[in-house]
């Protein structure tokens, strides 16, 4: 729809509307905007790029706004700066292992249940809908998804305490709010990341001090 709008605008010698987008299959996390009052629009569990016009009535007026959150300043039109997310990952969202230093893959068994749960947390696409949906502009669903993925795997346990301290500290420093258990993030997450991740983040955080 925005492509069509922009074509029309350019052909009439107007400026097109700038918006982030790339894979157009709901996996890269580039796209994201408020549509009719919901992050990624009124349909649950999909990203903006998958939101088809058939979900709207003919002639309906559609309201589109950029993400609104202090840590995501607007750059132009619908494009916001989400580099704060990268900064949180840089603070501790990794397992410290050098290339070549890894043990044989099957030498550390992982419970299937843990591996599956870690996967469910790991599928976050970093789009920022959770922050945009939250009245506190909290990034805790995003942070907790990464914390959970690593907390559930033996490979991630070694640095678990340092990781959770570093990521939470960075999250606070960047101006994200805290969680007050409303659950808007879970309701709007296009990948259906669960609120239980935040509970695990809190447990991990208490254990770290």
């Amino acid at each position, binding site marked *: *729809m925005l*492509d*069509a709008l922009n*074509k029309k605008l*350019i*052909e009439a*010698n*107007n*400026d*097109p509307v*700038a918006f*982030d*987008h*790339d*894979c*157009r*299959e*709901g*996996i*890269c*996390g*580039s796209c994201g905007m408020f549509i009719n009052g919901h992050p990624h629009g009124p349909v649950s569990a999909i990203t903006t790029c*998958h939101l*088809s016009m058939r979900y709207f009535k003919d002639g309906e007026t559609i309201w589109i706004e950029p993400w609104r959150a202090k840590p995501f300043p607007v*750059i*132009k039109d619908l494009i916001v*700066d*989400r*580099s704060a997310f*990268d900064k949180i*990952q*840089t603070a501790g*969202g*990794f*397992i*410290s*292992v*050098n*290339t*070549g230093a*890894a*043990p044989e*893959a*099957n030498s*550390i*068994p*992982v419970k*299937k249940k843990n*591996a599956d749960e*870690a*996967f469910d947390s*790991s*599928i976050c*696409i*970093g789009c920022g809908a959770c922050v945009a949906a939250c009245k506190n502009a909290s990034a805790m669903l995003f942070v907790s998804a990464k914390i959970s*993925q*690593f907390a559930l*795997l033996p*490979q*991630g346990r070694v640095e678990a305490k340092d990781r959770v301290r570093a990521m939470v500290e960075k999250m606070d420093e960047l101006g994200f709010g805290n969680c007050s258990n409303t659950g808007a993030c879970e309701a709007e997450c296009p990948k259906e990341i669960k609120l239980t991740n935040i509970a695990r983040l809190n447990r991990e955080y208490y254990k770290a001090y």
Partner: protein
Amino acid sequence: MEKLNSKIPDGPLSQKWIKFKASSKLVNPANKKKLEIIVVGTGLSGASAASALGELGYSVKNFCYQDSPRRAHSVAAQGGINAAKNYPNDGDSVYRLFHDMIKGGDYRAREANVYRAAEVSNQVIDHFAALGVPFARDYGGTLDTRSFGGVQVSRTFYAKGQTGQQCLLGCYSSLNRQIKKGNVKMFPRREMLDLVLINGKARGIITRNLITGEIERHGAHAVVLATGGYGTIYYLSTLAVSSNASAAWKAHKRGAFFANPGFIQIHPTCVPQLNEFQSKLTLMSESLRNDGRVWVPEVSGDKRPANDIPEEERDYFLERRYPAFGNLVPRDVASRAAKERCDAGYGVGETKLAVYLDFRDAIKNQGKKAIENKYGNLFEMYKTITGSDPYDEPMRIYPAGHYTMGGLWVDYELMTTIPGLYAIGEANFSDHGANRLGASSLMQAAGDGYFILPYTISNYLADQIRIPKILTDVPEFDETQKSAVERLNKLISIKGKQTASSFHKRLGKIMWDHVGMARNEKGLSKALELIKELQAEFWRDLNVPGSINELNQELEKAGRVADYFELAQLLITDALNRKESCGAHFREEFQTPDGEASRNDNEYAYVSVWEYAGEGNPYILHKEELKFEEVEMKVRSYK
């Protein structure tokens, strides 16, 4: 010929990489810090290379056009990643993986590189597991594998249908660790506009900051291109809409030879185009063909809903033409057969460019639950995109451009014909021949970045330790920047009527119609003419609003489309030159009486390597003869 030295080490195949590693030059740790390396791209190959080189202590600068390195299009790979672990005890080995890849590539890849890719595959899996990539596991806690097309062993590691995302996020995490340590400096939202050469060596790049429009200079002792493939040359493809060939193309025009540009894989099972504004063809995993039956109505133009067409009026054309393999014929064969039916007027849906993939019989025989367990997430995705439920009515599918086997020519060390310029991952040509096997792209990209390039690049950099920091206030940078800016100004000052995307769409249609799944001399020559005309129209009637000194997405698109016009002509030149059918390159003139590909090993067992000879001059063809020491060339048959 004399310009190509593939630098393949001597000795038996299984000893080449070992021998290379033992004898390649090293850089002392104190010197590594002083050596700067630019890596362009943050996909599986770029992010893995940047982090591995950072770990070694080099000063790395990593660039991507997206707002975050985590969004590179490796993220969209679905099925899995191959490795020769032989965990299922089913007879797999490095040799077998190598052999499958050579055969799958229809004997047009370089043996030594393919063997090495297979050799490092196991380390890649070890490393991803250690990085916390949540691969699927068995109840005992060990890693699970599954089978993939074209092979008889189970060697594909996977994380549901999101293996690419999980592997990419693994690379992204190791990249973040190096960013935190200060070994890698990340430059997101930057587009590489050109490559800077000093005394014939790659010494830097010119980039445009996509937020401010500022033109920037970056110097380095070596430059690595990890910029992916050029599948969006068809406009509609399974790639991200901004995926592009511009960085590789600029390097090509500066002297890096381009190999096998005509080898492009068309994936048979994609969600077809539903309307004119659709910008993307989403892949549906090929595993669906295990249970889905492909058909079209027997009568051309039958307008009845699929479920109202009785069994006897359906043409299961794959089962009819290929009784032995049926719906499970390889990708290229399935794609061509679907196109043939649609061209003949039997296509379904509004555009008539689709065929049915029907699960009715599978649901009847195995139950809805069994099908849901196997394909639930894919059915959901299909429903989200199309609004139609595959449990109730057949999917509509059509082939789409997917992966480019061709790319910048590299030697065994992954260096292009420009000293100090490397190409890794899909951006190079070396491992997949004329056709790529499923789940081997992630394997190759991560292998190149983590385990191959760090060894080979030191062989070059060891001789660069006396070169001081590359300064960017020298005439070479001035000139390259000037020409890059001139081109931007040229694009923006045309002020015609048509958008870059509308030109891209038209270019894509010409490419798809004449340079897609089946090609012939007449069609290729016609496409070349049409593209030249369209290119002229582009430079006459393009409309890019705004200025170059600001965020300007239309300017970005225009630059990429302008390069595609040039690459398209080389691609066609290559397709015209290769008078044989092999892998994904099917020339209609060269087929067996029953419509199968007819390879010509006597005349075409070589890599076509193209040298740019300047504006308006014909390309110069170099041939890298392929010598098969281990593998015997055979004909593939699916009947």
